[in-house]
């Protein structure tokens, strides 16, 4: 028996029980309970008669820098980070948006150098931008830029450069981030972590 059929059977039984109580039981409080059971059973039966769709989670994708072979792979990983772990899309849009609370990033990869973007992500207070997209005096954006390399987001250096590669790609620019450099960064971060662990142990 399928889950829906089982639930329908239970629903019908509850409605039936409610009807029996209302027909044969005199005690008023029990009758009220029977009435409530009948209403709830009927609600369940209606809900079971509409299309049943569960929302299944998509497969978990891992960002394995070691699997990167081409700059396009890098940009593809950067895109995933942009919309998930990096939380960039919580505030930024790519293209005009009414709900974006921070600058629109369309074309930013073509306008800004990778080093500058990197600095803006890891030291956001170095350059403060104001919002000029309205009449009157410029205003600060509603949300402040966080340090992307620190908690709670804490992207690694290779991950940040993957995002920069994505920004370049979606701006129609050739990707200037080199895969070998990103690999080296990954190795470098690993060795720094190992060293700090050793220091801690000592």
């Amino acid at each position, binding site marked *: 028996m399928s889950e829906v059929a089982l639930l329908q059977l239970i629903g019908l039984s509850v409605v039936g029980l409610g009807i029996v109580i209302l027909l044969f039981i005199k005690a*008023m409080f029990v009758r009220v309970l029977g009435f*409530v059971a009948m209403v709830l059973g009927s*609600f369940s039966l*209606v809900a079971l008669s509409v299309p049943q769709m569960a*929302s299944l*989670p998509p497969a978990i994708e891992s960002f394995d820098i070691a699997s990167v072979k081409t700059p396009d792979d890098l940009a593809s990983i950067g895109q995933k980070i942009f919309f998930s772990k990096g939380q960039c899309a*919580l505030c930024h849009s790519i293209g005009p948006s009414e*709900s974006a609370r921070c600058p629109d990033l369309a074309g930013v990869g073509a306008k800004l150098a990778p080093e500058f973007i990197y600095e803006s992500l890891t030291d956001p207070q170095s350059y403060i931008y104001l919002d000029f997209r309205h009449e009157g005096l410029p205003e600060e954006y509603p*949300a402040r830029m*966080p340090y992307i390399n620190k908690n709670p987001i804490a992207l690694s250096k290779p991950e940040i450069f993957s995002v920069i590669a994505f920004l370049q790609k979606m701006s129609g620019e050739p990707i200037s981030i080199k895969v070998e450099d990103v690999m080296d960064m990954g190795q470098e971060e690993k060795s720094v972590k190992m060293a700090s662990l050793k220091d801690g142990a000592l």
Partner: protein
Amino acid sequence: MIHQSLMNILKNLVCKTRGLPLLKLGTVFAVLLLPCLALAQDAATQAMSVEYRDIPGMGSRNLIWIVAQQHLLLAGFVLGVPIFAWVCEIVGWKTNEPRYDKLAKEFTKLLTSAYATTALFGGILLFLLIGLYPKLMAYLTDIFFPSFIAYCILFLFETATLYMYWYGWDAMQGKKKAFHLFLGFLLNLFALGIMIVPNAWATFQASPVVVADGTDIERAWAAMQNPTWWPVNIHRLIANVVLGGFICGAYAGVRYLLAVSREEKEHYDWMGYVGNFIGVFGMLPLPFAGYWLMREIYQYNQQMGITLMGGFLAWLFILQAMLIGVLFLGANYYFWMGISYRIPGSAQSYKKPIMAMLIVLMVCLGVWMTPHSLVASLEEARKMGGTHHPMLGVFGVMSAKMTVSNLMILVTFMSFIMYWRAGKVETAGWAKIAKSVMGALLVIAGIAVIVLGVWGYFVPAIIRINYFSVAQVLIVLFIMVTFTPLTALLMKSAKTTTEMVWGQMPIRAGYSLVLNAVMVILLMSLMGYARSSSRVHWHIYGVMRDTSEYAYSPALGYAAAFMSLNTFLFCLLVAFIFWVASMGGDKSKGPQKEEPKGSQEKLPEGLTPAMAGGSPRKGE
């Protein structure tokens, strides 16, 4: 830190137990849960390694679902009741009518009984969350810890104020009444704080903002100010009043059905009327608050909005329409029964308008429940040329649904106005003009709402959402805010032609009050599921993914069965709490023994002049 906050919560539980048997019960239970502190400590230290724990057989999510639902429904009740208990008390104080004060006290009695159980379920929920979802709780604690402290402080103040408000009721009469009312104000203020702080945690999960560097307080404050925080605060505040009103109405309905003496019947008939009135009063602006919330969700993340309205949750809104429709019908039916049974001779004269209202409500409900895509077999779909029905398909879109929901609100409001005016004749010289103006405004408003609805099909969605729907809401609100004071002015000088008789309602009136309460509880459960499921497979949308085996959202049928179970459990819980509370009352006194001298005793038994929201003294 978690350990500290748990200790604070436990202290709260212990502090507020003096005097009330249920509170003591709660404390004993909380003490029994002390071993959970060890679990909490363990969770804090292992948070990085253990992401989830499970309950074999039942599943961790199902357990959390039940406990959270019971806690939220109880919390909605205990936060909603003080609002109208306080308003009732003010009315009693202003009109010098002790029975309003008595009613307010009875409401507060229900509140004190439910308060400990609410805290108890809150405590259980907290322990379960820490134990079953350590990683998520560690993340939220890291961001929100200062707000946990604020919450504990608010809880302490709320508890202390509730003590003084409840135990000081009789002592603070006469000259001290103003201070008692001030306590009632403080009680509501702290209750508001208690509601909005956890709302921030829940809304952050649905609409997180990036938390930049700063002090702990700055970070918590930034996270609290997420886009859906205030829409949810307002929506819940109103919904709590609705829930509280209808539950008090259902309590009165059951007591009415169980009542033996005439005095009891009169009292609980009146209490049921007030409960239903409060519920309806809150229900009228509720859809507007819901509309604002949905707008904010769409603005925050269009994908989330689409998941809700057009994705796997789309059918949920058909169920929502059914529940709201039944609620509107139930509330109106109760009003109409009131006209027929409490105001002798009115049944015949109001028969036609009641029939017209019923037809409008049924047609509107039919349109509201029409789905966008019909459930059809392949053959049926081919005949229709798709899943959209050639004729009914036009009713499946938002423009039609916004129109009918506004019309239903308008009809319900007019039902209330009709009840208010029943059994009275206006004596003011300007009454005729006022009634003509009101009639004309009502017709114009109805036509304008329909025209905007039809026009909405021919303009881009953004124009309809930003201007047309807003205009429809404003038109209905305009009618409500102009008709209410105008009718009050008219009724001030009106002559009562038929006295209102309490305690004459048929048995089905009691059942309709129970039905309304069940509908509201189901609605809150359903929309809670919608809000939670709109996050799909994320604990914190776009930030922290749910990687447990329960990351999927169950289908509507399974969810509805669970909601029904939760609703039944909640009804049993509330019945038990109220039963325990009623054991403490002095039954020998009888509910009407403290009626004021004067007008009431001059009237025949059960007779008072008719007036919406209660009845004034004769001669006023």
